[in-house]
């Protein structure tokens, strides 16, 4: 056993004693957070207390501050991709006018919304879409002229449908809601939004 090796082992050992308690404290705090959150929220209107229970994706993204290790990220993206329900008729484009209405509406799923109220897509909350609408948010990228850039062949339509159905299938921890996966919008509504984005007649592409 040489001196260098001995110093090496000693260093590793002391690092381990440093690192392990930190990890233990971290995971204890993680567990306590979940305990508190589960206890301290209550039903209100349509927003029931069990909404704080995380699915595997939400838990992963929260735990790693939206930057999970690549291996875990890819694994969960595959699972999300596999769970997409594709339209049985292999048609993806609906009515862009209905899509524009959905995009404008920020309603839906809050405790002040009623179960019977139609849900909106919230699109303009985060994205620029039609050039005519200047009150758009900037959390997501601009989608002005999206269809012009993307093209609107069947592959593009399928891509956009999948993206709206489950934005996390491409990028596990991005900010966008999973409109199909979480049953926020119906298949028909998602098709209307695909049309808003890709139809050459849509104001998005004018």
């Amino acid at each position: 056993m040489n001196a260098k090796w001995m110093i090496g082992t000693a260093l590793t050992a002391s690092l381990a004693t440093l690192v392990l308690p930190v990890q233990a404290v971290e995971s204890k705090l993680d567990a306590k957070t979940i305990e508190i959150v589960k206890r301290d929220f209550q039903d209100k209107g349509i927003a029931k207390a069990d909404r704080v229970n995380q699915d595997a994706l939400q838990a992963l993204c929260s735990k790693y501050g939206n930057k999970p290790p690549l291996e875990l990220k890819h694994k969960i993206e595959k699972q999300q991709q596999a769970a997409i329900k594709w339209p049985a008729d292999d048609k993806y484009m609906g009515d862009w006018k209905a899509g524009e209405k959905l995009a404008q509406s920020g309603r839906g799923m809050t405790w002040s919304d009623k179960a019977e109220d139609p849900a909106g897509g919230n699109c303009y909350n985060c994205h620029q879409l039609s050039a005519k609408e200047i009150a758009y948010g900037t959390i997501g990228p601009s989608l002005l002229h999206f269809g012009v850039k993307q093209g609107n062949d069947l592959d593009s339509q399928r891509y956009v449908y999948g993206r709206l159905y489950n934005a996390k299938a491409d990028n596990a921890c991005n900010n966008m809601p999973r409109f199909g996966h979480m049953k926020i919008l119906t298949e028909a509504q998602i098709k209307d939004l695909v049309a808003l984005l890709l139809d050459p007649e849509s104001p998005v592409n004018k």
Partner: protein
Amino acid sequence: MNTKIILLLALAANGAAIAAETEVSDSDRIAQYREMISDGNPADFDEMRGEELWKTAAGPKMATLEKCDLGKGAGVVKGAYAELPRFFKDTGRVQDLESRLLTCMSTLQGLNTEEITAQPFATEKKPSDISSLTTYVTGQSKGIKMAVSVKHPKEKEAYEIGRRIFNYRAGPYDFACSTCHGASNQRIRMQDLPNLKVQKDAQGAYISWPAYRVSQGLTRSFQWRLNDCFRQQRFPEPKFASEATVDLTMYLAVSANGAAFAGPGLKR
């Protein structure tokens, strides 16, 4: 009723009309509005109401709140808010202003806190005593630098859990606070979103609540602000003054340390 009060009432009514117009020029209108009321804020009324409540004997024990210990000793209101949330020995918990007020209303006045927390926020029809008390107490820290401590292990833990709650994604939209408040220079529609992970934004946001909301015609507390953001987050409702809300407040209050408290403020 003196002329200043009449003037303020007229301006408050005018404010409601202002809010009904377009969203686009909100900040201009707020600036105008602020100028108009430069010698007062409709929140002043709520502050006066709170002061009255603080000093009036009430509850089964017919006591005032003047002996309430907000952390700087029994009865000390000045500067108390700038050091909240903090750990309290008598309850063994970290408490924010509202949860501490509940303790005092219960122990000093004998009031039933469950009745208070069932309807904690003011509506157009009914003012809220605990909300007015909050406006009064925060007003007594105006101009005082935020100095919230994380020295006690329980305070440190509250901060750490608050940070986790800030990043906790759940619900039908997968949102966390950080979804809307985790990057700079973003907005929802035309509303600017503070990046609460950077000190400057966090300070500006924290020190300006409670605030009189022109669009609602009501003075709103920080607990209300959190409640309404959880609504937008598509979460269920946080229980009023619960540990989850106190810990989250701790995280945000510590981020605001060093800035002079500026509330009660005025918002769109």
